[in-house]
């Protein structure tokens, strides 16, 4: 039994040791003692075992069990037993003296020992017992899962710290009880509890339980571990800081209306009176759609984001009403997280509120606009298309954008002309939403890659023309290449659509023959038959520009047309099923972006792709076979409700908890340990049935993170271009710092929004060079984590800079979807100087670039023609003296490179600062 003591006490935070917070009202000694008896009695008399189960189950404990088995059995009992409703009596020799009802009437939880004199769990809140159940369950799950896959569960169960609040609770509220004054002090209860503070705690617990009802599954009250006190001190000094931890029930948690009793039909006026007394002026009599007139409490919200705040508002409200704790005493940091996902007020006021120009915003509106485009294209491809009809009919149009799967950092907004005209230059960014068009198969496509690209151009041109002719107000263009200037074999043709409402879409054409053609080049089977294998691969294959282009094209083909739509569908499904998932991903993306890392599955942008972040977040929500369970849930809602209930409690119910779990995972993730990476069971067995697994080209992967799914066995399709080992170590360091910051918030309960921003505040001391950008021309500056609001709103009145004039003149009132000069410059610099330095940038309106030189270039090295960096002859005489005998040595010409950057970024770069490092 020391085993159990250790688990429950030390690592879960029920005990009194160490720092951190512990669960109120339960000391481990109280808890463990009964189990000692439980096991002991069980071994003695088999009939007693039945009693513990309480449901006539088969006995779980037998005589010959090992200590590990006993440990598991005890955990199992803790996890499954419903302490609240089923009192536990250890079998006593002469039967129990009092009936169970007698205990239940005075105590919440009943566990009577064999002497029949003590209720060991007296004074323990049911919430604490539920939490214990969940933690026991999680430990069991760890034991189970680790035994299947190789790996020792011991460190996870016994050595790692599970006391942190943010990964265990969906909502953590920091409450200062120093001003608490119960509304209706009950002296009997105070006496019963032993001290006034204990009484307050227990009444808070019961009031919260009543107020929140079925919104939450667990309410736990936690307080800091008491310090040691000198013997001379009579009473323990109790801290008046407590934490309230809630685990949501996602079905009801964000309900806006609570129904109370009906004063007309209810014969008992006391219930109505009680309801009014409890809710105060919040209670109102309302008539509902079904005709009933009942007492109710309504929490009104303006946006969907605010809905997630309802549980917190309820807690704040009842604490104020019943304990007189003001706003300043109740603190959380949830709003801070919401704040980083919102546009600044000076921009958003054009979209929502009374000044709004009445345009649809958000994911729903984006999906609606997308459906409109899809319909318009489908009409074109059908017979109704008339003269504009496409030669092939459109089979499928699949979205692949994060804006259509609820996981973009900012909820999508359109940019109609009416709004664009009032916005200043640095807030006028329109994010294009990507999709993929799939035509029916046809044998008439040319059998040549370059020609295929031309046919795509022709198709896109036809669609663009047709759409412009049919849909009023729609503008369409064909994008014929990308900035990097690629070979004409690459698939770069895109269709750009801007609808009348101001939504931008970018579509590509998926032609599955391309894969075959590319494979032919790669495998050098271009002219021969498929069953003929070539032996002399090494010679002809490795050479040639075509081969390299083909490898590249094949990789982007696999990613764009096979994985992206599939990934999109899976993630969208996940967002529907787990309400907290989308929020988790959005915060996580914001975090990666704020630390200048996010972007680019294609290797052009940042280092951690959006899809990789989505997969990492999904890890905390999905378990093996979640799809099947999800379907079953719908069927057998009633049958096995409790089991589902239990499982769901382990899944994060709020985005803050999801984010904390992610940070906790990243800070400890040892990606190169197993060499296999992590497995995310994103795709259920049903969805991949009958689908051939697409082959991924992994040879060019530089990333070290491996996130495997059922569709991607190698796990590098989304991490192909990073993070590499250096970046991954940096991510881990950042996560550790963030974790420390979260911990600090937990302990100090820093007030409101300001503190959360420290998590997203990026330290720039590590960079060798910082490049400042001109904020007035950054088209995404309004998405910056901490924008200078004056720069956003006053721009229209302010004297414009010459840059801006130039930009305004060039834009000419035109809306350029996805035009972000900073990003374009960033991508160019990253590509041009890929062997010279690492460059970092926040894609969401970051106004700085960070540069770290490749340290190896600072060492003098012999002159080489293809140095792939800009060098100058070592100027120092002694270096020359040493080496001048054999070869002249060169070093990186830092000033020269910076001069080039300044020239390339003319009009975008404001200044370059060199960090002097010792």
């Amino acid at each position, binding site marked *: 039994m020391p085993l159990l003591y250790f688990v429950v006490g030390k690592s879960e935070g029920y005990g009194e040791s160490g720092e951190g917070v512990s669960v109120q009202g339960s000391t481990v000694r109280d808890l463990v003692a009964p189990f000692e008896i439980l096991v002991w009695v069980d071994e003695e008399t088999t009939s007693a075992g039945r009693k513990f189960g309480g449901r006539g189950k088969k006995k779980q404990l037998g005589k010959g069990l090992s200590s590990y088995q006993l440990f598991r059995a005890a955990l199992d009992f803790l996890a499954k037993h419903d302490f609240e409703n089923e009192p536990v009596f250890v079998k006593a020799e002469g039967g129990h003296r009092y009936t169970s009802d007698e205990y239940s009437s005075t105590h919440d939880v009943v566990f009577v020992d064999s002497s029949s004199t003590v209720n060991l769990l007296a004074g323990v809140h049911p919430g604490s017992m539920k939490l214990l159940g969940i933690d026991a369950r999680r430990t069991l799950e760890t034991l189970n899962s680790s035994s299947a896959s190789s790996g020792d569960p011991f460190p996870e169960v016994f050595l790692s710290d599970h006391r942190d609040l943010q990964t265990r609770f969906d909502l953590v509220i920091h409450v200062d009880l120093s001003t608490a004054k119960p509304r209706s002090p009950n002296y009997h209860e105070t006496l019963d509890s032993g001290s006034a503070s204990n009484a307050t705690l227990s009444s808070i617990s019961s009031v919260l339980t009543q107020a929140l009802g079925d919104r939450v599954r667990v309410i736990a009250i936690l307080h800091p571990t008491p310090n040691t006190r000198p013997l001379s001190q009579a009473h323990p000094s109790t801290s008046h800081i407590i934490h309230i931890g809630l685990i949501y029930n996602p079905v009801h948690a964000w309900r806006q209306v609570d129904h109370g009793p009906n004063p007309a039909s209810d014969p008992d006026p006391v219930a109505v009176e009680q309801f009014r007394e409890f809710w105060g002026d919040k209670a109102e009599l309302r008539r509902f759609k079904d005709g009933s007139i009942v007492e109710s409490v309504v929490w009104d919200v303006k946006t969907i984001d605010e809905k997630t705040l309802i549980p917190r508002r309820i807690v704040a409200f009842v604490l104020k009403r019943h304990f007189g704790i003001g706003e300043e005493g109740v603190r959380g940091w949830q709003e801070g997280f919401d704040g980083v996902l919102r546009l600044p007020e000076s921009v958003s006021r054009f979209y929502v509120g009374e000044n709004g120009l009445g345009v649809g915003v958000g994911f729903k509106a984006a999906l609606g606009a997308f459906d409109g485009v899809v319909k318009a294209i489908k009409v074109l491809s059908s017979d109704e298309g008339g003269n504009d009809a496409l030669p092939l009919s459109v089979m499928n149009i699949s979205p692949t954008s994060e804006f259509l799967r609820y996981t973009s950092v900012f909820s999508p907004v359109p940019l109609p002309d009416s709004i664009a005209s009032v916005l200043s230059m640095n807030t006028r960014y329109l994010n294009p939403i990507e999709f993929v068009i799939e035509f029916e198969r046809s044998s008439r496509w040319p059998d040549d890659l370059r020609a295929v690209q*031309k046919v795509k151009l*022709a198709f896109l041109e036809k669609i663009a023309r047709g759409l412009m002719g049919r849909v009023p107000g729609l503008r369409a263009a064909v994008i014929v290449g990308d900035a990097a200037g690629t070979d004409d074999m690459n698939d770069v043709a895109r269709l750009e659509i801007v609808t009348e409402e101001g939504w931008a879409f970018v579509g590509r054409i998926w032609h599955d023959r391309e894969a075959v053609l590319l494979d032919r080049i790669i495998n050098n089977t271009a002219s021969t038959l498929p069953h003929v294998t070539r032996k002399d691969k090494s010679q002809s294959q490795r050479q040639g520009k075509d081969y390299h282009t083909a490898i590249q094209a094949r990789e982007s083909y696999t990613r764009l047309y096979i994985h992206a739509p599939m990934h999109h569908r899976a993630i969208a499904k996940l967002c529907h099923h787990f309400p907290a998932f989308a929020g988790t991903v959005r915060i996580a993306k914001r975090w990666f972006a704020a630390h200048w890392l996010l972007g680019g599955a294609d290797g052009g942008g940042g280092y951690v792709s959006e899809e990789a972040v989505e997969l990492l977040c999904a890890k905390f929500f999905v378990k093996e076979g979640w799809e099947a369970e999800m379907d079953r849930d719908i069927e057998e809602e009633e049958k096995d409700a409790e089991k589902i209930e239990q499982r769901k409690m382990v899944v994060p119910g709020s985005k803050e908890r999801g984010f904390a779990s992610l940070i906790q995972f990243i800070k400890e993730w040892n990606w190169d340990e197993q060499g296999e990476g992590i497995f995310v069971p994103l795709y259920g067995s049903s969805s991949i049935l009958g689908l051939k697994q697409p082959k991924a080209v992994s040879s060019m992967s530089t990333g070290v993170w491996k996130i495997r799914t059922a569709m991607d066995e190698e796990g590098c399709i989304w991490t192909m271009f990073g993070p590499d080992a250096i970046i991954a170590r940096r991510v881990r360091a950042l996560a550790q710092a963030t974790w420390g910051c979260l911990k600090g918030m937990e302990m100090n309960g820093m007030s409101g929004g300001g503190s959360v921003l420290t998590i997203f505040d990026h330290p720039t001391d590590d960079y060798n060079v910082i490049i400042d950008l001109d904020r007035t021309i950054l088209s995404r500056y309004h998405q910056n984590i901490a924008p200078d609001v004056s720069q956003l709103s006053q721009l229209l009145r302010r004297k414009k800079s010459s840059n801006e004039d130039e930009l305004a003149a*060039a834009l000419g009132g035109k809306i350029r979807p996805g035009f972000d000069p900073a990003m374009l410059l960033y991508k160019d610099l990253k590509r041009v100087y890929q062997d010279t330095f690492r460059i970092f940038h926040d894609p969401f309106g970051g106004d700085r670039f960070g540069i770290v030189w490749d340290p190896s270039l600072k060492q003098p090295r012999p002159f080489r023609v*293809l*140095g792939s960096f800009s060098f100058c002859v070592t100027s120092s005489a002694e270096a020359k003296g040493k080496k001048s005998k054999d070869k002249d040595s060169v070093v990186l010409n830092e000033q020269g490179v910076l001069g080039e950057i300044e020239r390339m970024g003319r009009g975008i770069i404001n200044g370059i600062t060199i960090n002097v490092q010792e």
Partner: protein
Amino acid sequence: MSSSTLINGFTVIPISYSSSSIHYIYARAHVSNKKAPNSWPSGRTLFLVNAPPDATERDLILLLKPYGTVEKVIFDSDSAVEDADEEDSDSEDGEEEGGVHNHGDEESQPRKRQKLTMKKVEPPKVLPLPSMPLRKLRKTGQTAHVVFLDTSSLDRFFSASHTKPRSWPNSSEEPSGLSHYLALSDSLRPPLDAVRQHANSAMDLYEFELAKSKRQSKYKKGEAIVDEDGFTLVTRGGAYGQTVGGGVAVATKKFQETGETSERTKKHSKEKTSFYAFQKAEKQRNELLQLKKNWELDKAKVEKLKASRRFNPY
């Protein structure tokens, strides 16, 4: 030769970007390599190392103007591309080169005409997408070949002093910085008519090439005739049908495994070389002569080696 710095055989040309930053380009006369497929005229070609990543042809022409007229500039990183689609980009190049030097056109013109006259039918011309003068940003530390019009400019270049940094001539023709990105964004979205014409003409060319290659192929019968509904017209003839080219070949196991055809097809010369007595005698005599000759050569070589190895005290 000159007062400029030399490093590893390269002349260092300092170029100042601004008061604080100086870039270095390293120059050497181009030495033609027999292995290299594209050999530039030796004697008037300058090989540049570490050209700035945003350098354009015009920039380099302006930089080297004091030494002579530049015929052309080739950036090595994309020379392969330019070779491949010379026909495509010719019109573009012609425009750019035309103003600066006329000789270049004269030289390229006959070559082109020659090429065209070789073909019996003129291939359809691809209408290029409208293009703006845009800077192409290449990888840093790139190399370039600059071909001067005459050899004297190369000498003039190397005899000149390169100690004082010269300012980088940033031609205003191609925009840089913010305006570069605006122009790029515009040029990537050409008018729809241009896209259509380009795509159609490119497809015409593709079909023309396809037809040409079909004419040259072994299967004289041509492709199967597929009608609008996708049905293949089956015509009379041969046991295996005419549609597939009039016959079926069987691959040997060896071919399947290695992808190589057997040596059977190689023709042996019909003439016998050692049939008559005089042939044999002649062959023997020749061999003996050859042996003696080689012996003499070897002896001379050994002498030379010995001479070179002699101890030579100062």
